[in-house]
């Protein structure tokens, strides 16, 4: 009996050892059958709009033609999945060479040591960076180094359906918080909603908080208490909660799924207004060609009309085995051709040299360019995703009526303070 038992334990140990030896090891450059170097590029370009097609059928083939020997493999993920996928790939050592990362993930990825500092590794970095707008460029900076280059920028503006506004007797889109309340009053009993949004994350809440004169933290990002729960911040969220309680904002905002999506409800006339970015234009053109989408600035509160800066950066991973080839593609993405091609699909260019041509490419960029002048970025903090999740969860409690807005923001600030303190 004994030798058999020993043998089985040995076998078990051997299997475990063999498995543990599998992980680790550096990455070898990937080549295809023809000997071309393959660069993997992860992104969240949407297949619902012409974005993905333009990237895969125009931008990448044009680059490959100009750079023989390099192939770019485009790997699209749904936006919500990409962040998780990046984190698991970081832990597992299976990252691609290039990633189009939401600007809010860059500090986190840089802090994890996932990204290569482009400002040090790229010869032409200063030259390329000088031609981009300062705001978007700042989103690539962490600890004094730039870990990427801006790829596209955007902000949220008010999109409205005039037919629904007419029901409330409004000839003009709501320009202030008071107009929003008036709109909500005017639509009562019609079954239509004054405003729709699909989450309570920073992207959704911050335009209201900032426009009300509130803020998330102090300037040095050291404290949320006294800022996130200030009377001004509360007023911004209160407007949304009041409209929700009136039945003028659909359940979508508390994360309830299965309702009419914002992009469907607006052209149908169920929703009078929503906040969204320039990429919606191609989507509406495709899905609701009869609907004339109109935009206006973010409604102003006591703090003005302040929206949130969005956008993406292209970043290179530190584990990339073919950095030279990858950087050639980055350079191409930041060139006029690629930027203009993507601009056709609602991806707002980041090159200051294209500024004057912007409205020639698409007239709808006008409202966005104006809104961007006052728009603010979300907290450039490595733990922003966690901070945002706390805000999101706490504010939901105010919507369901479990707490007041003040209590919800007090609690969020109290949980965020220790994260900021480090």
């Amino acid at each position, binding site marked *: 009996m004994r030798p*058999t038992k020993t*043998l*089985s334990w040995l*076998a*078990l140990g051997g*299997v*475990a050892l063999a*498995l*543990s030896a599998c992980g*680790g090891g550096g990455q070898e450059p990937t080549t295809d059958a023809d000997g071309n170097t393959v660069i993997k590029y992860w992104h969240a370009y949407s297949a619902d709009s012409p974005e993905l097609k333009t990237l895969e059928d125009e931008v990448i083939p044009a680059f490959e033609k100009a750079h023989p020997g390099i192939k770019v493999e485009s790997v699209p993920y749904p936006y919500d999945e990409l962040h*998780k996928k990046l*984190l*698991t790939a*970081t*832990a597992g*050592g299976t990252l691609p060479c290039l990633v189009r990362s939401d600007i809010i993930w860059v500090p986190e990825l840089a802090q*994890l*040591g*996932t990204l290569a500092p482009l400002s040090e590794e790229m010869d032409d970095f200063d030259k390329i960076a000088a031609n981009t707008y300062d705001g978007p460029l700042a989103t690539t900076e962490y600890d004094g180094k730039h870990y990427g280059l801006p790829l596209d920028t955007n902000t949220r503006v008010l999109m409205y359906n005039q037919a629904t506004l007419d029901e409330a007797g409004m000839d003009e889109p709501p320009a202030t918080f008071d107009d929003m309340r008036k709109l909500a009053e005017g639509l009562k009993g019609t079954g239509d909603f004054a405003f729709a949004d699909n989450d309570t994350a920073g992207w959704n809440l911050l335009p209201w908080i900032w426009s009300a004169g509130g803020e998330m933290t102090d300037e040095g990002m050291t404290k949320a208490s006294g800022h996130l729960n200030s009377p001004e911040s509360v007023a911004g969220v209160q407007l949304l909660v009041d409209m929700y309680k009136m*039945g003028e904002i*659909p*359940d979508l905002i*508390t*994360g*309830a*799924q*299965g*309702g*009419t999506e914002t992009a469907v409800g607006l052209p149908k006339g169920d929703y009078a207004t929503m906040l969204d970015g320039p990429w919606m234009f191609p989507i509406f053109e495709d899905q609701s060609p009869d609907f004339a989408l109109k935009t206006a600035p973010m409604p102003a509160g006591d703090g003005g009309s302040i929206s949130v800066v969005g956008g993406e950066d292209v970043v290179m991973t530190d584990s990339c085995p073919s950095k030279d080839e990858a950087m050639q593609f980055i350079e191409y993405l930041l060139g006029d051709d690629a930027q203009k091609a993507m601009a056709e699909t609602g991806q707002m260019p980041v090159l200051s040299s294209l500024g004057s041509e912007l409205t020639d490419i698409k007239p709808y960029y006008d409202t966005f360019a104006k809104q961007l002048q006052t728009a603010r970025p979300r907290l450039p903090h490595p733990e922003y*995703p*966690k901070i945002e*999740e706390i805000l999101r*969860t*706490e*504010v*939901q*409690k105010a*919507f*369901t009526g*479990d707490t007041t807005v003040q209590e919800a923001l007090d609690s969020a600030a109290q949980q965020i303070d220790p994260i900021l303190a480090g």
Partner: protein
Amino acid sequence: MTDVVTPTASTSRLRAPRAGAGPRGGRGRGPVRSTGPRHGSRLTPYLFLLPGMVLFVGLILWPIVQAARMSLLDWKFTPGVSSPFVGLEHYDRAVHDPVFWKSLVNTGVYMAATVPTQLALGLVLALLLNKAIAGKVAFRVLYYLPVITSWVVVSLVFEYLFSTSSGLVNHVLHDGLGIGQEPVNWLGQRWPAMAVLSMLGIWKGAGWSMLIFLAALQTVPKDLLDAASVDGAGKVRTFFSITLPQLRPVVAFVTVMLVIGGFNVFISVYVMTGGGPGDDTQVVLTYMYKQAFEFLEFSYGSAIAYLLAIIIFGLSFAQMKLFKYDEEAS
């Protein structure tokens, strides 16, 4: 993770007993010793075991050991960065975390709502479909269909059914029958959402209990039933005095599996409410997932997973003792 959720996936680990195999079973124990000449070397059986062993060690045992290690460290995400040992700190944190307790209560509520209902429903369906009725096979297939349907798909379907403004349920209840002033916000409030989640669990799981009970009903000795009827026992009396006692080990087995499945509820909650609004419908596994994969607190997530494992182990052990499962089944 997905595999553990459905009770069916775990059946292989617990041997389904033969109904009525109790004291009269008298099967031989242990493998039969070969008396013929030995074929092959002593290594042969191990070579046959190897493929399964590799999968078991690599996909189950290894992660279990790693998670235990992780839960005792302040595990750092980035490769190459050292992770300090912190002992039971993460377990201590969980015990003092109100959201963890809330998730435990929600899980308990889900279990209390789904386990007895699935047991009763499964047994009733099995008894009905054990008779010679027309379309018996079709009914069996229909009731079993939810079990083999993807959790994600049925969760999405329920989400649309129970949507506040455009869901079918509110359309019938509110617009059709005129019940209530306002349409019910099913998934945006704690208890209505838990009710919908439990309904989904029951609908999806009842067919599995039915199938096991159906199989067990075939093994209830016919002579006992005949004897009962000769003695003048009615249908109800026969059920409670003959059928149910004969099914006891199967009831025990189904209960244990359902409790384990109930504790492992994840996909439906993750898809339909995401634990929200404001952590109100968080169950243990969604909270663990949130800590690990959204907050990157893998150590804390592992500690929560281990606490859940301890609870499930304790409950299963208690149930087996309660049902005297071991003596009955072997």
